[in-house]
């Protein structure tokens, strides 16, 4: 909680503090520690902790109704679906585990009865692919970002005027002129008074439009 307490005091006082990467790191650290702690605290729910009804309901959400297009058991009013739910309830009362009950239905209707493929065998692809998509996409974004940065540094070395005339290159819409000025004036005054928004700061620095 130290980060938030610290932050709170910052909110109260208006004296500017030196910029610090530490504050960011502390915030990140706070999140990085508290989230796994929360996970540990809340724990994983065990199937033994659930009532028969809760387990039956969960299973009925995990199994497809074989005769209805694309509906899980809990959504379907078809007779077969009602019968299957009765079977689920009976099997839970007989002490079978969720996995055993799922296997029972797979043996009868094939894998298609599972609403999501089991993470094993060939179906591991179904589960690995999302991770590949996420990591691959993240690498692409980071790469694009680094490339842009490198190009920018090269450009800046070759052409120093670019920076100073940047706002002239910015296509300003004529109608926006007055509004923009009003807004900017507001923000600059606000900045002087102390209600500094991050936009106001950079805007004052390099004349960007909001």
């Amino acid at each position, binding site marked *: 909680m130290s980060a938030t307490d610290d932050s709170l005091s910052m909110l109260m006082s208006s004296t500017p503090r030196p910029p*610090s990467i530490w504050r*960011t790191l502390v915030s990140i650290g706070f999140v990085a520690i508290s989230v796994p702690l929360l996970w540990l605290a*809340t724990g994983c729910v065990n199937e033994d902790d659930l009532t028969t009804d809760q387990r039956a309901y969960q299973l009925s959400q995990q199994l497809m109704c074989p005769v209805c297009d694309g509906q899980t058991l809990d959504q379907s009013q078809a007779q077969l679906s009602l019968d299957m739910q009765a079977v689920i309830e009976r099997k839970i009362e007989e002490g079978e585990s969720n996995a055993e009950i799922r296997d029972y239905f797979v043996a009868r209707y094939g894998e298609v009865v599972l609403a999501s493929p089991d993470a094993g065998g060939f179906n591991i692809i179904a589960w690995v692919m*999302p991770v590949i998509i996420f990591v691959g996409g993240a690498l692409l974004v980071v790469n694009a970002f680094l490339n*842009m940065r490198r190009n920018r540094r090269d450009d800046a070395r070759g052409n120093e005027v670019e920076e100073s005339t940047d706002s002239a290159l910015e296509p300003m819409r004529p109608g926006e002129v007055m509004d923009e000025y009003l807004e900017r004036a507001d923000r600059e005054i606000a900045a002087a008074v102390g209600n500094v928004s991050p936009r106001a700061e950079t805007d004052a620095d390099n004349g960007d439009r909001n």
Partner: protein
Amino acid sequence: MDQIGTTAIWLGVAVSAYAAITSLVGAKGAVPELVVSGRRSIYMAFLVALVASAALLIAFLTNDFSIKYVANNSNIVMGRGYTLVAFYAANEGSLLYITLALALMSAISVRAAPRRFAGAMPYTVAILAVVLAFLFGTMATYANPFETLEIVPPDGRGVNPLLLHPGFYSHPPLVMAGLVGITIPFAFASGALISGEYGDDWVDIARVFAIIMWGILGVGILLGAWWAYTILGWGGYWSWDPIENVALMPWLVLTAFIHSIMVQRRRGMFRMWNIVLIDIAFILAQLGMSINRGGSVVSVHSFAESTLGLLFLSFMAISLLFAFAIFIWRYPRLKSERAIESFMSRESSFLVNNFLLLVVMSITLWGVIYPVFSNLARDVDVSVSAPYFNRVNGPVLLLMVIVMGIGPLLPWRRTSTRSLNRWLIAPMVAASLTVIVLVAFGVWEFWAVLGFAAVTFAGVAVFEEWWMGARARVSNLGEAPWTAWWRLANGNRPRHGGYIVHIAVLSLAIGVIGTQFFDQRYDAAIAPGESLVLDDYRLEYVNKRIHDRPDRLARWAQIDVYKIDPAQYSGEFLAAKNAGKQGFTVATGRRPGDNLVGQLEPSHEFFRNFNMVSVRSGIKTSPIEDLYVIPRDFLEDERVSLAVSINPLAMWLWIAGPIFLLGTLVALWPHPTLERAARRRRLGVTVPTDASIVALES
């Protein structure tokens, strides 16, 4: 009527083909007359689509069963009010409907295109015309709604009973129009690209139409969810069904597009990327229309199955090649002028937003095609449904909510960690408090707690923006707080409209978390006079009402809902708990503390012609939770089998709808000063140029 209709459709083929050819020839040969003629042909295409639609409508109204489509989708007893529904209830009619929708929107967009876009216009018109020609051509050859029957039946078959509901007026036409309408921003982007005048001129009009289609699609999807939940009695609102997914995917990509197009508008960046996004959205919309027409995936929406899917799939492949080809061809001109300056900037937060949206889209696409893939690869059928999508998309959606909180706090170009940190204090404190409060009150679901914290974080960030902005105006301009806020939002409508949409998304997130993690359900069969108890509700089955008609057997369960004092039922609660039951049934009447809070009348209808059951749920709603009742079956022994659930926070799903619409409209609302300036510029009046601003500034 059938002759008028068929003629109109063939005319449509001719007119759109003519529009495409004249536009291209006119542009290449620099013949302005041809270009103008091509453009006007789009209006003609709309006109013939209108004539064909009117012909079909009249055929329905006059019960013209010599037309096959009318005979299949209407009958004499059907209320005339449902004629419009029958119009797009099956393949041929819905094809005519999307043709009409696209022709109308094409005509509007062509009319609204700014003059400075004229150089690229012929190509845009040609693309629109080709798509229209494809739709007209498909109708003319494979799916003519005016196909006649040799033996005229005395009565029609009637429309699919699941569709016989006012909800069908809104959800399907909106989704269909939104999907086909993505053609418009695509046509403008591609037109600009082909013409080589790839400045930023296309950005404004493409943005406006992209937001319109995004709004239509978004409202359509939400209405579908609402319809499924409140009326169809599916129990849920979103089941990650393939048809739902193919509408969601283009919507996600459009969401990415309308964010990143702002970067191009303001900073001239992401040019290449924006083209890629609109191309993907267009291709996905084609995929959606193809899957809608039946084919390779199983769906609850398979109302209209046919081989047309394959035809649409081929058109999608051609579109993909076309988009790819012009992209490669014009690649050298697509380089951005500027690069991202800092990771701590609005630009890069849009980049992250785009990344997350596309990840959700790609994962969803993977889930949709995996069954097909599995079937092809090893000849085993698998299902990929809600449990899969919730698990793989859930964490990414959570991340997206967090980024939604940080993104708006970052200014364009760059910022310092210090000022960002200062802005993050309030949201962080609020999020931490949420976690503490939830855990203190015994909410221990990890993902739910994290989700609520993220929602608080993002919500507080938006309100902080409004609060600080309005406060600056109050203290500096002496405005009243509400005036200050109003003017602040008015000053930059795209941004503040966006914030309003963010609030809608957060409201949606609250509903999703509540219903996904905390729902309770209990099914039981009870006789009249008996009650079912779940949580602190007692549902007394009073009686049933029967309506036996030739086409259907409709039965209603009349249910009194009581709030109970659990202490009065402690014995039963204990017994139920020991038996592993969520709820229990009681035979006796009222006990002290019982309080009648409402009456519900859910229904169960059996349609004889279709051998199909359709239920209507009974819902007692409140901001805290919904009590949701479905009569699953009326049994022989007078009992009714009820499925009762408590869906916490469900109302927030529907509150999101109007807020979403409001935000979309705010973002779209034209800017009066901008309009005036544009008019002045057209009249040749000088306005301050960029250079004079620089002069003023220094």
